[in-house]
Structure formats: C-alpha cells, structure tokens
C-alpha cells in the first residue's frame, strides 16, 4: 500500500502570457473506492496566489490550514499579501520542519508576482523546490501529465488558449490514471480577474 497513492490526485500549473492556470481533478478516493467527486484540491491564499495540494488528503487539509494561518499572521504584521516566491519558501520550510516524519503531500504553487509576472513551482514532500518556467505537475497522474504537457505546451499563450491547453492535458492524463478523474477544476488567473471553470470528463 503506497501512501501517496491512497487518495489519488492530479495537479498541474502552467504559465501563459501575464497569466497562469492551475488545474486539478475532482476525485477523492480511499484506494479503489471513490468517496467524493467534488473534492477541492486547489485553494486560494489570496487573489493572486493559489495553492494546490496532492497526495494524502488529510495531510493536504492540515497543511492548508497551517499555511492559511501563517499567511493571515503575515498579512496582519506586514499589512500586505505574500509574494508567491516568499510563500513558496514558507511552504518549503514548513515541510522540512517535518523532515523525519513528513506530510505526505506534494504542493503546487501558482501566483502572479511583481509586475504581474506569473510564478509556478512544485516541491516534494520534504520541501525541495522545483521552479519551472513552463509547467509543473503533481499527483498519481504526474507521469501522464508530464507527457501531455510537454507535447501541448507553447510559450506566451493567452488566457483562453492556456485554458484549452491545460484542460486537454489534464483530461487526457487523468483518463489514463484510475485513481484520478471525475472531472476537472481549472483556475485561470490574470492580473484583472480569476476565472474558475469545472470540466466534465470521463466520470470514472
């Protein structure tokens, strides 16, 4: 029994022209049984920063609660929102605190930094950051996502085209993974608005 494959998940974040997209599947399972088909894996930290957590769902929830707490404290002290790069470092530090008894999660962080420059990163369960210029993936469907994103990604995509690309890559990848699926949740974030869309794919 693999702990990272207990609940099943698929997460992807992609960079576009002055925008980014972050998407996840919607299945929550307990090994082979599906428990929920509307599970939220992506959470908003603030208007320009989103966090997706794949892996063990209980650890994802706990981690999310701790990070929201830390961000609220930061907002009180600094009277401003955290920059995505800073938040990524915070997540990395919190994960490494548990180096010898880790949270079984792989986070995907996506946000708009200074001058509306999109920022994406992922890390392993003990906080090793991977900054990418194009896309990052996480979850049980990660290998499929790597293949699909690598083939479909183009630089400087506009928000609408980025949405199409991320959606196609996500749906194609989760269809080859039995532990993720039941539709998709896609957020496309530009400096002016956040568009949240639900995808209907193979419901199995």
């Amino acid at each position, binding site marked *: 029994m693999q702990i990272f494959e207990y609940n099943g998940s698929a997460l992807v974040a992609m960079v576009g022209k002055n925008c980014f997209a972050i998407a996840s599947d919607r299945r929550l399972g307990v090994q082979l049984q599906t428990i929920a088909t509307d599970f939220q894996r992506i959470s908003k930290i603030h208007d320009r920063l989103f966090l997706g957590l794949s892996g063990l769902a209980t650890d994802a929830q706990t981690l999310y609660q701790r990070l929201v707490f830390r961000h609220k404290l930061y907002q009180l002290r600094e009277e401003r929102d955290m920059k995505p790069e800073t938040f990524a470092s915070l997540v990395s530090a919190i994960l490494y605190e548990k180096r010898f008894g880790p949270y079984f999660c792989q986070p995907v962080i996506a946000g708009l930094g200074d001058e509306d420059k999109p920022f994406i990163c992922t890390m392993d369960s003990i906080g090793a950051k991977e900054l990418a210029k194009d896309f990052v993936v996480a979850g049980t469907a990660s290998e499929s996502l790597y293949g699909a994103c690598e083939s479909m990604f183009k630089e400087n995509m506009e928000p609408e085209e980025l949405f199409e690309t991320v959606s196609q890559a996500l*749906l194609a990848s989760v269809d080859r993974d039995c532990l993720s699926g039941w539709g998709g949740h896609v957020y496309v974030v530009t400096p002016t608005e956040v568009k949240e869309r639900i995808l209907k794919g193979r419901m199995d």
Partner: protein
Amino acid sequence: MTKQQANWSPYDNNGGSCVAIAGADYCVIAADTRMSTGYNILTREYSKICKLADKCVMASSGFQADVRALQKQLAARHLIYQHQHNKQMSCPAMAQLLSNTLYYKRFFPYYSFNVLGGLDNEGKGCVLTYDAVGSYEKVGYSSQGSGSTLIMPFLDNQLKSPSPLLLPAQDAVTPLVEAEAIDLVKTVFASASERDIYTGDKLELVIINAAGIRREYMELRKD
C-alpha cells in the same frame, strides 16, 4: 533469523519506448535506439524493431536479452510455417503466434513489452499491443516501455480511438494520413525524451504500406 531472500534477479530493464499507429492503408512503428541499465547507457544505437514477416513488424521494450530470444523463436516458427504453407505469415496470424509464445512461458515470462504492427489481409493498418505474458488487443495505436505513461495520454488526445465497448462496433483504425502520423510520432518522442531519462538518442521509424517497408531516422536528445 529472517528467511534469506534472493538478491540476484534473472531480469533487467533496458528501458526505451515503442509506439505504433495504424492507418487506413499504412502502419507506423517506432522505437528509440537507447539501451540502458540502471542509470548507465549501454549503447545509443540499438534497434528495438524486428521484421517478423513481409508485412509484420514488432517493436519491443523491456529486457532486451529476452526480446532477442523471443524474436529468434518467432523467426524460427515463421520459417517452419513458410515451409509448411508455402507463404508468409499474415499479421493476424503472427499476432496469435506471439501471444501463444509469450503465454508458453507464463511462469517464467519473457520480460518483453511488445507492440506488433503491420497490414492485415485486406491491406489495412493494424496495431496489436501485448503485455509480458501474451494478453493482446487490436487497437488503432499503442505505446509500450518506459515512456508509455507519458506518450499514451497524448496519443489518446490526438487520435481518440473509440472504445471497444461501443455499439455499433467502430474501426480501430486511425483517420490520419501517413505523413501526419509520422509527424505525430516524431513529436511524441521529442516530448518523451525531454522527461523520460531512458528515452532518447535516436528515433527509428518503420513505415509499412502497400509499396513495401521503409525506414526513417530522427535525432533525439542525447542527455
């Protein structure tokens, strides 16, 4: 005192990826030419593709020693068939032979993940995909090997082969022209080479159509 476990395995994984796409009157079979063991590269120029019969070609990834043994077996059986029937084996016939040969070693399998491609008796492209013990299925396209998890979702997206569960039964043959299929294969291997460490060096393509068999090569990433 715990029971002693064997620390020697008869198998090894030499990595690599194979893809095959069937068309209305052609079949494209492709594989990379890298052979590795663990984190090392043994050679950059190893062909994983073998011509079994006139219109039937097999690409195999996995343990290349077992693949070689399997190819030898099939070649021998094909020769016997030719002596007895005075003709080449057709692709569907070879498909069944491969399945039986693999299952024969059900309890000490050939560590070989095969994709068979060719033209069937009517000249239409056919691709069959196998597991290590001979379970097989006729499909419109398939991939096997270390890069297959990266390649398959993209092929699904581009080729949308209908499910065998659909009624009325739909053809498992792809509505792409030969040039488009070749382009797709090249794209897919370029992407797989980026993210899979066992795929790369060179791509070998074999294209079978009514005119015969031809080979093409394309350079891939060498890292």
